[in-house]
């Protein structure tokens, strides 16, 4: 009796210290992420903007109906979807191809790897601005390069389609090393005995690839696609630093639209907040899948 009471007390006490360990981080999470998130949702239902910074009031779904009836909205949805797919698929494909080549018999792997990893190791904030410089119409390296073959300079960042193409290329460049690294890891974990056994059975080349490699690294491919989609959708730097969403709204995606509305001089916080909520809804399901996939919330050991 006394011992069971003691054990209950003990457990409570143990839990108390557990909560204490987490408390400081939890306070930060509550006040800086969860509360602001709720506040963002609240703002999206008000008229908080330049004219009503302090004296704003609830206006229901008017910001949302404004967004959905705005012709720009469809362009931005289209941009966001195209942006995500044109980035993720080539990034994963290129990363996988590089990993496969580096996993086969080829000399100088270590040296190649060192070079191939550079886009990942260099800070993206800086390399994106470097890309911006390389795309420069007058002085950029690409137009000078084309000039050698008497090709007319391309307005990389000033033309709607070229601008989109340019930021996609820069973002693919940023992304493939990480994919290469995770695929290399997955390929190295496949036991070589499997390939040996297959060779003895007469399966070589593509058949080994189809029946051994692809099935065994499928989870990593899914992880790459999922992570890649979330990162691309959310990649403020890639979508903002080179073009800032322009020209016009040619390269504007959800998050840059929200940022520009709030801080681009208009201080249109309420519509920006509504855009952020829409972006969140788009991201929520892949995000949920990812946390499931990572299995991090599972009870460990």
């Amino acid at each position: 009796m006394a011992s069971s009471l003691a054990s209950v007390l003990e457990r409570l006490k143990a839990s108390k210290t557990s909560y204490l360990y987490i408390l400081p981080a939890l306070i930060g999470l509550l006040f800086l992420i969860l509360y602001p998130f709720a506040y963002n949702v609240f703002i999206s239902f008000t008229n908080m903007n330049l004219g009503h910074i302090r004296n704003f009031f609830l206006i229901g779904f008017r910001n949302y109906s404004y967004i959905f009836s705005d012709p720009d909205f469809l362009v931005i949805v289209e941009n966001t979807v195209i942006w995500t797919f044109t980035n993720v698929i080539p990034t994963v494909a290129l990363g996988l191809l590089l990993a496969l080549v580096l996993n086969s018999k080829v000399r100088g792997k270590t040296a190649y790897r060192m070079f191939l990893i550079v886009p990942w190791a260099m800070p993206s904030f800086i390399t994106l601005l470097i890309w911006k410089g390389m795309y420069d119409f007058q002085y950029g390296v690409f137009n000078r390069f084309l000039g050698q073959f008497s090709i007319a300079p391309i307005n990389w960042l000033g033309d709607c389609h070229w601008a989109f193409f340019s930021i996609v290329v820069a973002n693919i460049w940023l992304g493939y090393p990480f994919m290469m690294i995770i695929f290399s890891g997955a390929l190295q974990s496949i036991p070589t005995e499997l390939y040996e056994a297959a060779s003895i059975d007469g399966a070589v080349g593509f058949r080994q690839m189809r029946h051994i490699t692809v099935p065994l690294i499928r989870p990593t491919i899914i992880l790459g696609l999922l992570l890649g989609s979330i990162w691309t959708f959310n990649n403020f730097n890639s979508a903002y630093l080179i073009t800032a969403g322009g020209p016009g709204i040619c390269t504007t995606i959800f998050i840059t639209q929200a940022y520009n509305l709030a801080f681009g001089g208009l201080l249109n916080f309420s519509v920006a907040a509504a855009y952020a909520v829409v972006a969140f809804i788009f991201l929520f399901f892949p995000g949920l899948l990812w946390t499931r996939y990572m299995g991090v919330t599972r009870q460990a050991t």
Partner: protein
Amino acid sequence: MTSSSGSQWTVRKVVQSVLKHAFLIVMAVISIYPVLWVVSTAFTPGETLATGWHFLLGFLPLPNSPTTDHFTSVFNLQVTGGTFADWLRNSLVITVSTVIASVALTLPAGYAFSRRVFPGRAGLMFSFLLPTMFPGVVTIIPQFLIFSTFGLVNTYLGCIIPYTVGSFALSIFIMKGAFDSVPRDLDEAAMIDGASELRAFWQILVPLTLPSVATVSLWAFMGSWLDFALAHVMLQTNNMWTLPLALYSLITPNYTYYGTFSAMSLIMAVPVFVVFMIFQKYLVTGLTAGSVKG
């Protein structure tokens, strides 16, 4: 018959190997090309690069007469009331504080999630993961509004606090994973021998998980040393700028200082690059640990 098929095999092998190397060489050049360009530009005289450089082999940009002027002009840089010394100091204060705060807060939380069973554990872990599903702007707008009511806009804390909290999602789980990989017997034995929990944590668990502590520090460092989106909003006067804001100001539609920009890029990127190359193994492990285990 046998010899002909054998020679066919080698021809095929040679072709394959040539194709592989061609692919790898092209990709390697593409991978380092922007770096080559920025190094070349940093040493090319003049700010806008109209002339003063040429192509080697038709694609490698090289300065005609290299100069180190741009590096000295970085240190003398000022933009209406803000100097390079200001920006370096601001960046260092914000970054060092963020790293310390992040490590101090994520280690105990990771420990609790790894070693303790308590009511609400799964729910709490999930709530720390939740922010990974938020687009950054969902929190930047309200954070800015909340901070402006508390007078924290244009202060160091206005950046340090969000950066620290922003590092939680990844760092807490990296530390939890690291502590999970240390056998429980080790710290339990120490506690049976009379060591306090704090001492067992500090003298057994932390030394065994130093690579992960380093990874957590590195993530906090990179998140704050190179952040643009939040700093651009929070730090409004030129003397409060961090280095990324100053760097961004060097290429705007109105004026482009590519020479100084390139030199400054190298000054900012090289330390990160070196640290990153040293720690890259741990960085990948930290990110994918969950998927391997799950």
